[in-house]
């Protein structure tokens, strides 16, 4: 075997896993129903295990994607036959779609897959399932992340995530949830839940304490991909989805700029503006415009606008941002929003006003809260600044964040 061939092959399997695992899982979920999510996952995983070994021995087949679908389809039919469900043609129609896809991969649109993934996403975001479970389920079933990777992103152990996933799947079974899209009357509320979950997936990547920056970037890109699916489907393409997309694009434009060579987080003020990714900012601008189609101004609209003013130069930038935060606080009373507003207030009115505003914010166990207070006090009273930086160091979870804070403490 030629070495360049091997390299190509070795890069291809993880890539195929990332793109095809979730398609296989969602089509199988649609065939089996949500009572049998585990089987769908098992079959998809087994298919890839077989591929790793078989391709390792014999080399890559001429059409790897078709190979995967054929193997998965055969496993699924075998499973259905064994469990005695293989009765009606209807049950296998999705699998047949898969087979047709595999024989003529370029002739059929991706509709079967896109549609199955969308349905699964809406089913997972059922109101009876706790939000953090929805996020874990989405990462596992729709993004194909391994239990180990999810654990790394949440900075917890594998066992914890396994338990969480198992519980969530049990919930899905008990609910007898279907993969039908929610009826019109419930659609609006459900889209809200789906968007929240996508945003949490993004935040998990953007703000995670994990030191694995490749993994974190993947999480952000997955959230962007899921949101793209919503925007590309007519019935789910609400302005709010575009607002979330804009928000994520603006944030993502600074993904590289905010991570230093040691993996430490570089604060917004200290980032090299020219290193921000212009393509993502432009993309964000495009979606922000599309988000303006509707009547509603949602929290995502305001957050996207705030992110816009962070990403582009503007006169009275911080005044505008402060104003937007005031509006955001009216519809989303979160201490994090209040803390971020205090930063904008500091930029407009100076540290004393910001400190006064932060006194009403209940985030005593948050390292960012104390880091900000440390920064604000450093120009006024160093003792206080030292106290808050020390608190922040105690509360921070990742070593790189601790290091960056310690440096600030030393600089006082």
């Amino acid at each position: 075997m030629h070495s360049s061939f091997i390299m190509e092959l070795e890069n291809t399997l993880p890539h195929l896993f990332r793109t095809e695992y979730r398609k296989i899982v969602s089509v199988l979920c649609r065939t089996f129903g949500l009572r049998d999510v585990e089987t769908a996952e098992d079959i998809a995983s087994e298919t890839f295990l077989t591929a790793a070994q078989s391709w390792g021995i014999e080399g890559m087949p001429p059409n790897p994607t078709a190979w995967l679908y054929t193997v998965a389809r055969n496993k699924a039919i075998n499973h259905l036959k064994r469990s005695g469900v293989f009765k009606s043609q209807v049950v296998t129609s999705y699998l047949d779609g898969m087979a047709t896809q595999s024989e003529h991969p370029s002739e059929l649109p991706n509709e079967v897959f896109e549609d199955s993934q969308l349905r699964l996403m809406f089913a997972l975001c059922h109101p009876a399932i706790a939000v953090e479970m929805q996020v874990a389920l989405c990462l596992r079933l729709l993004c194909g992340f391994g239990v180990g990777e999810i654990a790394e992103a949440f900075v917890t152990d594998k066992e914890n995530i396994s338990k969480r996933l198992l519980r969530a799947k049990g919930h899905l079974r008990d609910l007898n949830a279907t993969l039908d899209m929610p009826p019109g009357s419930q659609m609006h509320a459900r889209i809200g839940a789906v968007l929240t979950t996508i945003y949490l997936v993004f935040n998990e990547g953007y703000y995670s304490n994990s030191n694995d920056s490749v993994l974190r970037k993947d999480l952000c890109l997955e959230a962007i991909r899921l949101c793209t699916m919503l925007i590309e489907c007519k019935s789910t393409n609400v302005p709010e989805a575009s607002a979330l997309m804009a928000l994520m694009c603006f944030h993502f434009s600074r993904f590289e700029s905010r991570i230093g060579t040691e993996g430490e987080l570089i604060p917004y003020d200290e980032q090299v503006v020219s290193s921000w990714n212009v393509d993502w900012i432009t993309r964000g601008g495009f979606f922000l415009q599309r988000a303006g189609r509707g009547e509603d101004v949602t929290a995502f609209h305001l957050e996207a606008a705030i992110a816009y003013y962070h990403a582009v130069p503007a006169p009275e930038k911080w005044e505008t941002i402060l104003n937007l935060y005031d509006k955001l606080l009216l519809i989303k009373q979160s201490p994090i929003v209040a803390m971020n507003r205090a930063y904008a207030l500091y930029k407009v009115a100076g540290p004393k006003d910001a400190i006064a505003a932060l006194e009403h914010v209940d985030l005593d166990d948050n390292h960012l809260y104390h880091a900000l207070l440390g920064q604000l006090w450093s120009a006024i009273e160093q003792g206080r600044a030292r106290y808050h930086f020390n608190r922040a160091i105690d509360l921070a979870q990742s070593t790189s964040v601790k290091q960056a804070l310690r440096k600030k403490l030393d600089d006082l």
Partner: protein
Amino acid sequence: MEEYIILMRLDLITRDAQPSPEQLQVYMQQYHSWIDGIVAAGKFVGGKGLSTEGKVIRFGKVITDGPFAEVKESIAGFISIRATDFDDAARIAADCPILNGKGNSVEVRRIVDREQRS
């Protein structure tokens, strides 16, 4: 040189059921280097990986879905090689990456040569 077959057995119970993409990459890489080494020594004859589902047919033509119904081990693949003797074949088989998984095993069997037999 004699011909041998190496049967790879996978423990269906203790295997890592849901490997990450990176683990899969490692698995495939391991098989590559193993096979590459055998090819380089001019000892590789052929081989296949197998899908887990199957049927077992017993005396009286009783057909069961298997092999997983009865045993926890199932044959995951096989290769055939040329080796100087049993020890040589066993040395090659010992490098099979499936042995990195707890509970897995490989079996080396000599293929009976028609000419020798007659």
